[in-house]
């Protein structure tokens, strides 16, 4: 399948809009969910290195101070008003940014999203960039856990929020996988618990879950807070009966993996996502396509798939014990 | 007119020497070069109309305010000014006009706090607190529950607490800024006796009051203020109240006793066996057009509670209220006002006025309907007209309707609240303690207005602690005690020569007519 995009004249229009006295540079603004947390600081590194790699591009990151879709919309509106050439967004709530992104496109601005497959193929965006297939990522998360549980026992899950599209996609894909392959694993709560990406909530959830389910055999956390705090509580209690898996960062999961409190952790490099999203945006501004098989200049994205408006890489990063020498974590 | 210094009664040292004090508050000259000297063992009374600068003088000496210029020294030691601690350390104690108590702290703590602070106490023992409180209370001869918060204590007892707090220290100069406003005759007597004792101990006492008979009783010298300047110092024994009044106001003040002149005797308001458990019992009363019915008694005798019931704020349990012969159930102030009842509340600061707002806003607050044009839309013009009307009828000294009432003197504030009620042309006007803290001149003007209203056919209920006030204004009087009416006096009693004295003793000693007990409630 030839996954070429650029059906819209977005690229050309973008170049036109670029005439506004900025020395012919292509301006790309990346709007993260929130500024100041390590994930997006790492993403900014990717944006910065993209900016440095490309003379004719000025790429920068600017975002809100809290994970609030309303503030993110405001930042995007300000970018539209400045008439940048492209906007890259990691939406807090894809639905909420959709209209403003559509407006951006109507103004001839190229729009690329990351972590918003739901917007792919809509009028709101040109392309969505994913580090991997969310379904696979979810299965990858649950498989080693089921294995470690010996294929049986109680399992509890926790997500950042029930409204997070990607978290729920991983969780549900994982559940389907378990249902099919490990019928003896019992998922004890109707719905995953929720930590709102807050460490203190994740921590007290972990304590309560362990008390309320004394026979728990497995825990899966799709948010960084969920997995890390659950592991921390296991460590504090010296509890070795529960296998754990989920999303994490090298610097957070590293020590727990080394000591065995985390069974399995995986992630993707936000720097790569930032770099590649900017790359895609630049291509579209220049009126060029992104097609299956292209190399987008970053590890894990050297052979991307483009399908239904989604550019998927192969950038899942499995975290393993002893993978990084002490303290030398990339992020 | 004599303006010369009064001869010092004793050869004692000068305890307080304040020279050339000037103080301006954002344009208002509160003190204009005032000098006052008080000797140890002397009671110097300070009198003057509302806003003449008496309290400001006190606050400067006690370090609450810093004077713009001028000096203060206590027993020869000059004070830098503007620091209460310095003044207290020098031996200055004040019973403030507003008492300056702590509502949420207990009686014991309120009394002892002063002492504890200046003893440099760091760790507080409750027993020590109570001990100090008990000692000083004993000195005044009053018993109070030490552990209840001040907010649950009657105003009279609060005044006692404030007095005790000042007495708990070994003061050398004691200021008493209207310490008797809420006290009844009996307590006033006691206080004046204490003043005499303290004087014997060599204290210099500055006593401020609007009640000239008290002043005449304790004063060695009298200092008169007018408009921030000192009119003069006078030896008390060479003066009478008439002369003092003249010095204060610049004219003679006479109270004309009120005689009812209406001939329509059908009552506008009738209370029949009105009862509210714990507040008052079996109150029966009727008011005819032109009546000024005095309601008096000790504090806590239930007068205010009855007034609040008539104003819809304290529903009665049983009994009936009839207005113009029709039985009514008054459930809210609005309804009371619709029925033609107006109330001047007891506390003008807390219940009467919006202190930070202008006079016109205060006046229109009770009858916004009257200053609207289209339904619900206010008219600035009408509001101002109404304010002007009230201000001129009541004779408020500051004629600018935009003046913030908090900046008016007490008497003028009171005129505004009273005038607000008058402008509603009520059938019945209930005045709860209308002249507390109001100077002689303003008092006379207020009396004149009240009587004028009654003459026009309004029924007035006048709640008051002062026998003189009742005597000067009422044609009928009821004395309440412990929630019941214990005495009714009609126009013949009121007209009698010795009425004020008789009333005074009826109030202080209601035991004459009932076996009631003199413990203050509420």
């Amino acid at each position, binding site marked *: 399948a030839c996954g070429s995009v650029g059906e819209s004249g977005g690229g050309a229009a973008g170049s036109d809009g670029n005439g*506004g006295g900025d020395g012919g540079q292509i301006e790309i603004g990346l709007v993260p969910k929130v*500024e*100041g947390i390590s994930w997006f600081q790492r993403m900014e590194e990717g944006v910065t290195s993209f900016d440095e790699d490309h003379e004719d591009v000025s790429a*920068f990151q*600017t*975002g*809100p*101070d809290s994970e*609030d*879709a*309303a*503030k993110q*919309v*405001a930042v995007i*509106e*300000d*970018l*539209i*008003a*400045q*008439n940048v050439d492209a906007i890259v967004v990691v939406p807090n*709530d894809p*639905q*909420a*940014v*959709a*209209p*403003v992104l559509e407006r951006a496109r109507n103004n001839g601005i190229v729009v690329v999203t990351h972590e918003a497959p739901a917007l792919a193929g809509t009028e709101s965006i040109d392309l969505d960039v994913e580090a991997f297939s969310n379904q696979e990522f979810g299965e990858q998360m649950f498989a080693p856990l089921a294995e470690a549980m010996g294929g049986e026992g109680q399992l509890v899950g926790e997500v950042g*929020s029930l*409204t997070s599209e990607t978290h729920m996609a991983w969780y549900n894909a994982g559940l389907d996988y378990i249902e099919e392959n490990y019928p003896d694993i019992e998922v004890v709560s109707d719905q995953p618990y929720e930590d709102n990406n807050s460490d203190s909530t994740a921590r007290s959830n972990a304590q309560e879950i362990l008390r309320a389910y004394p026979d728990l055999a497995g825990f899966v956390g799709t948010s960084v807070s969920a997995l890390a705090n659950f592991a921390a509580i296991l460590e504090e209690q010296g509890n070795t009966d529960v296998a754990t898996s989920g999303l994490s960062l090298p610097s957070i999961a590293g020590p727990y993996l080394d000591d065995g409190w985390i069974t399995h952790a995986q992630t993707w490099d936000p720097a790569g996502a930032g770099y590649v999203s900017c790359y895609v945006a630049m291509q579209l501004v220049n009126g060029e396509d992104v097609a299956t098989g292209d190399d987008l200049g970053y590890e894990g994205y050297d052979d991307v798939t483009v399908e239904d408006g989604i550019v998927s890489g192969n950038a899942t990063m499995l975290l393993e014990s002893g993978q990084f020498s002490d303290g030398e974590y990339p992020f | 007119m004599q303006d010369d210094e009064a001869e010092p009664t004793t050869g004692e040292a000068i305890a307080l020497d304040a020279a050339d004090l000037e103080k301006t508050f*954002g*344009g208002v000259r509160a003190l204009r070069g005032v000098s006052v000297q008080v000797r140890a063992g002397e009671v110097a009374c300070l009198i003057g109309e509302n806003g003449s600068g008496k309290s400001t003088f006190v606050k400067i000496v006690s370090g609450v305010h810093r004077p713009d210029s001028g000096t203060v020294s206590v027993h020869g030691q000059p004070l830098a000014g503007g620091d209460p601690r310095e003044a207290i350390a020098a031996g200055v104690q004040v019973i403030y006009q507003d008492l300056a108590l702590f509502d949420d702290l207990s009686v014991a703590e309120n009394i002892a706090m002063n002492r504890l602070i200046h003893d440099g106490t760091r760790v507080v023992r409750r027993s020590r607190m109570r001990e100090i409180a008990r000692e000083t209370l004993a000195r005044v001869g009053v018993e109070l529950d030490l552990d209840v918060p001040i907010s649950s204590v009657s105003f009279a007892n609060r005044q006692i607490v404030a007095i005790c707090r000042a007495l708990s220290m070994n003061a050398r100069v004691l200021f008493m800024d209207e310490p008797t406003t809420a006290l009844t005759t009996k307590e006033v007597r006691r206080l004046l006796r204490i003043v005499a004792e303290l004087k014997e101990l060599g204290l210099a006492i500055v006593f401020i009051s609007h009640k000239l008979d008290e002043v005449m009783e304790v004063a060695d010298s009298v200092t008169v203020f007018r408009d921030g300047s000192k009119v003069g110092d006078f030896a008390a024994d060479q003066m009478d109240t008439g002369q003092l009044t003249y010095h204060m106001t610049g004219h003679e003040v006479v109270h004309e006793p009120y005689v009812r002149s209406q001939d329509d005797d059908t009552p506008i308001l009738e209370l029949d066996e009105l009862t509210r458990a714990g507040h008052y019992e079996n109150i029966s009363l009727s008011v005819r057009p032109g009546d000024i019915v005095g309601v008096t008694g000790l504090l806590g005798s239930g007068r205010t509670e009855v007034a609040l019931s008539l*104003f819809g*704020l304290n529903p009665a349990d049983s009994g009936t209220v009839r207005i113009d012969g029709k039985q009514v159930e008054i459930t809210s*102030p*609005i309804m009371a*006002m619709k029925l033609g009842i107006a109330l001047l*509340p007891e506390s003008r600061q807390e*219940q*009467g*006025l*919006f*202190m*930070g*707002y*202008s006079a*016109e*806003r205060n006046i229109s*607050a*009770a009858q*916004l309907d009257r200053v*609207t044009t289209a339904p*619900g839309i*206010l008219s*600035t013009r009408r509001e*101002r007209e109404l304010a002007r009307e009230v201000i001129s009828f009541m004779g408020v000294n500051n004629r600018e309707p*935009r*003046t*913030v009432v*908090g900046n008016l003197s007490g008497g003028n504030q009171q005129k505004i609240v009273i005038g607000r009620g008058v402008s509603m042309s009520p059938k019945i006007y209930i005045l709860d303690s209308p002249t507390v803290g109001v100077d002689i001149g303003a008092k006379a003007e207020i009396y004149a207005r009240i009587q004028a209203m009654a003459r026009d056919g309004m029924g007035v209920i006048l709640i008051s602690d002062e026998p003189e006030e009742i005597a000067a204004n009422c044609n009928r009087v009821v004395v309440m005690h412990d929630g019941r009416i214990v005495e009714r006096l009609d126009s013949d009693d009121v007209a009698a020569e010795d009425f004020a004295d008789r009333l005074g003793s009826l109030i202080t000693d209601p035991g004459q007519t009932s076996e009631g007990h003199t413990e203050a409630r509420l």
Partner: protein
Amino acid sequence: MVEKLRTILRYESELIVLVVAAVITVVLFAAFLSVEFFAPANLQSMAIQMSGFGFLALAMGIAMLSGGIDLSVVSASVLAGIAGASVVSGRFIPVTEGNGVQLALLGALTCVVVGMLCGLLNGFLIAKISIPPILATLSTMILYSGIGMAATSGQSVPVVVPVVGDFVNATFAGVPAVFLLLVLALAIAGFVLNRTRFGRRLYLFGENQVALRFAGGRTERTILLSYVMIGVLVGVAGIIMVARVNSARTGFGESYLLQAILVVVLAGFNPYGGRGRVGMLVIALLLLQGISSAFNAMQLSPYFTNLVWGALLLAVMVGNYVARQHRPRLAPKPGPEPAQSEEVGTR
């Protein structure tokens, strides 16, 4: 004329301080920013951003006039938005070719009604149960977002009627319609607060609620009504939010709560009641929006914006203090005067 100017100089110190702060800010922007910042497109975008938030701030301001506070403004407007969006989501009422406009109006009405009900509950708790406003609205803040969460499972409620989105983009003579709506609301609120009986009672309540009761004001009804009015504003804010993002979801706009309080106190509203003017609120809103957009344009970190907001708030308050030292002792206008007593109290 000169006389009038002098009066303004003497009495309107708070206004002057705020205007001076605004002027300095604009001058600084002019120095540091390209002309593009003042281009119509950017001004339009700022106007749109201000609109939804402006309604919330106005609502908060009204609560503060009575000495209260409404911590539930954002969650109530989101709940209203969810209710309104459900109407136009096609989930309950099928959307056809012809009924788009009617549905949109019905949705808007739903928003306002739900907002009003939320305000009514707040008002009831405050006026009739006497729960302190800060506690009452804190619990309803949690409650309202709880209802929204339970009703939607946290999912976004999409809007499928296109007119809703058009509403935000509509302009009259280049001015966004939603902004005109805000201007209209501010004007009406200003009128109601300053010139009507109800507004006056609200101020009087904030100044001294006991005195208002003795003056025959229906204090409880006034407070209840004021929260209903807040509810209506919050409902309109809900409409604007929904229209802007074409959907509604719990948790949206939460960060606007503290910002609303900030803008209101910056405008000189006294959290203890009785003081505050809609006109000043307009200036404060413009100031805050200007700073936020300008800093975004300069790609400054949002934390830097916070720093500047905080510092600005303190600077303006200190400016007011200094100006107050020279204030004469007359109340200025029939309008809600900002006079302060000389007391030591700093509450």
